[in-house]
């Protein structure tokens, strides 16, 4: 018996935790980690749904999410390094002002 409903509940809880992390934390590294948690939860939901209908499509979408997460993290961490280089801080409030 496949725990489909429980899997979706787990995905929802993890996604909500990631969303809370994005909204609450001010350190940009924690924001990136929370985004990772949210992406992972979305992938979990896809895999659970794929297993529910016994199709490999859910796992394939998870692979695409994985590739997207890898690209996002590489660009995001490069931005974090640039932010630290310019502002000597990882606080997202430091970059909330525009220069205009």
């Amino acid at each position, binding site marked *: 018996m496949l725990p489909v409903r429980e899997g979706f509940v787990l995905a929802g809880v993890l996604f909500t935790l990631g969303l809370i992390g994005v909204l609450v934390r001010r350190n940009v*590294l924690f924001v990136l980690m929370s985004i990772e948690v949210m992406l992972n939860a979305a992938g979990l939901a896809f895999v659970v749904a794929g297993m529910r209908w016994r199709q490999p499509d859910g*796992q394939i979408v998870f692979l695409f999410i994985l590739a997207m997460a*890898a690209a996002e993290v590489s*660009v995001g961490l490069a931005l974090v390094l640039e932010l630290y280089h310019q502002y000597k801080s990882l606080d997202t409030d430091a970059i909330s002002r525009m220069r205009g």
Partner: protein
Amino acid sequence: MTIVFYTASAVAIAATILMLTRLHAVHALLYLIVSLLAVAVVFYDLGAPFVAALEVIIYAGAIMVLFVFVVMLLNLGEEAARAERALLKPSMWIGPTVLAVILLAEFVWLLVCSGMPPAAQAGIGPVEVGMALFGRYLIGVELASMLLMGGLVGAYHLGWRKSPITEVTNAARP
């Protein structure tokens, strides 16, 4: 099977909550890695062994190594030494260790007690995933490769900084 699923889910949620409440990035990273490993156990229990392996190798391996490298790059000097000393205290690594040991016990239990892994009985293995991935979803694979290329070029461009040596050589060039 059900007990494994529920235990891994509880570990994943607990590790994620602990990750969100840490103050040091390294401690949060430890909990995040445990959370990803727990989700990998959930995948394995659901009957998706290929995705479970990729979760461990790429998410908990490659992507988290990127995070660790950046944290190491950011904390240089005396503060890093103090953080290292604090990291070696048992109170810092006992939490992730306990959660990881729970996952390891589940893994051993799955291998020893249930005989065949659940994936071999009823799951969708790497063969079906690979056939569909390079059949119907071939255009998606191409698009993902272009996305990764874009990520590579973007990260290189953002990380590129004019060093004095290259400026001198560029200036010397006519």
